[in-house]
């Protein structure tokens, strides 16, 4: 089709139509670009935030690695549940005696494993003065002993405020076998 064969009004109509189509095309193109831009900016922001958070975690990886190594080297491994329970009970009895406390009803409880840790618990009751209790508890737990108080119930004697009673379930946490 030759444009010169068309009448001026037809040519004007074609020009207007082409201009509209061009404007529409541009509008769609710009809209598409803007939409993509905002999508990319949003995803970039999310990813950057996640990277920052991960970098923070990764920056502490040396500390956690060091702690994992310490755990591996320090946490005791369970050889025999009965022996471990008895040993723990004996240690507790010695400590109670040392600090003038009366340890009664000692008993081995059922051991259980969870999250890769085997807990060997013992139950006992303790009676004595506040100072002796404190000393006993100081001796009870330390980072290299892996002793956890699974349950403790401490009561002050209602008749004699200097005396205390305690029901304990204490466990030693062993490394996975």
């Amino acid at each position: 089709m030759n444009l010169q064969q068309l009448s001026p009004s037809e040519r004007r109509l074609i020009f207007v139509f082409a201009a509209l189509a061009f404007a529409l095309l541009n509008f769609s193109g710009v809209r598409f670009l803007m939409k993509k831009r905002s999508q990319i900016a949003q995803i970039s922001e999310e990813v950057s935030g996640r990277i920052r958070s991960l970098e923070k975690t990764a920056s502490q990886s040396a500390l956690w690695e060091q702690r994992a190594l310490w755990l591996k080297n320090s946490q005791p491994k369970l050889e025999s549940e009965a022996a471990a329970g008895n040993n723990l009970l004996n240690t507790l009895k010695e400590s109670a005696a040392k600090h003038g406390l009366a340890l009664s009803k000692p008993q081995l409880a059922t051991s259980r494993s969870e999250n890769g840790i085997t807990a060997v618990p013992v139950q006992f009751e303790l009676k004595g003065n506040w100072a002796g209790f404190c000393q006993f508890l100081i001796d009870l737990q330390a980072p290299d002993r892996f002793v956890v108080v699974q349950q403790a119930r401490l009561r002050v004697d209602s008749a004699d405020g200097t005396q205390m009673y305690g029901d304990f379930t204490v466990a030693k946490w062993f490394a996975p076998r």
Partner: protein
Amino acid sequence: MKTRGGANTARLCPDREHWRIIGGGTGALADLALQISKRDRIEIFAPSSAVVLERFSLPKAPREDLQSMAQLQLEKLLPYAAEEFVFDFWEGESGEDSVEVVAIAVSLPALESCCAPFRQSNQGPSAVGVYACQLAGNLEGKQGRGLVVWGELGRVFLALVEGGRLHWLEGLPEVDAAGADTEISRALLGAELAGAGADVQWAVVSGLPGWGAAVQGALSGVSVQEMILEPADRPAGNWLPPGWAMEEANRLRRSALIERLQWIGLAYLGAVTLGFAWLAFQKSKLNRLSAELAQLQPKVELANSRQNQWHQVEPAVEPSRYLVELLHQLQKAVGPADIRITEFLMTPRDFTVAGEAASATEAIDYMTRIEKEPELSAFRIQRENPKILPNERAQFRMSAKAESHVPGPKR
């Protein structure tokens, strides 16, 4: 030759047998038209066969008036209608009231026939010259009047030239060089009779081997030079028909508009390309970030697993979670207040503490101090409202739950 916008100028002139592009090939005009780029400007030098030279005297007047008078004069002298020729002129010797005018007219039908291949493809021409005038233009440096003999489209033409201007032009009938001297003498006699003055002082024979002797024979005592004479570059006059000039102006305007539109289109295309390039750049940036994230992931996963491992054994290895440490914190918060802790219950995940205070206010203050204690920040503390006992002391109870992780084996 390059012109504005990077277009060349193609100059076409008649050759001995065909047409040629100056500095290019030879051939029929239709073939040469195919060798010329659509963007090129075309200047064509009309063949001498289409040219009529007239000489007449006109009253002295400005050039515009002379032009009109010459037009009327030519309409009388030439066998063409007014719209069938185009002419240009130059002014020769002038007397007191008159001036000698040499008008060079070109037949429009002949010119149209020459330019048809270009006009059909809407290529101009942009300028029209006369080949004989172009040859004369290149002999401007020669002193006095001279005779130029050259071959053009299979014919031989003679011209009298002085000061680079054409004074007389005639084509010889088909003769060979041997018998040409008589024809040349006859033609020069005709020139003299036409008032062109045939006192020839020099002669040039261009591209006609063997014609030097014939010319020498006709012009005794005149030095004859045989050479290849090229036409002058610039058209020595304007023989572009006015209608064509308008068409050419329109064509130039249209091509300028097209060129402008092309630039705009190019800029638009550049902007679109830039937009998509920017998008691609952003996308590649995002890909780089994703790659960085993927690279970081295993390291972080390992650190997280180590961290979890530690948190699992925290009640065993973290002194702030030890029973004695918790009791110490609870006791430290008592301070000088009259508060007695009566009961303490603990598991690895939580603890509960109960006690008595001298008043409800003291109990609340104590529990607030416990809540604010930084060493107990790992616990989420919940407190109950104190109860007033019969002895008017306040009994309080609060419980705390470790916030972070579920440690080791449950009870």
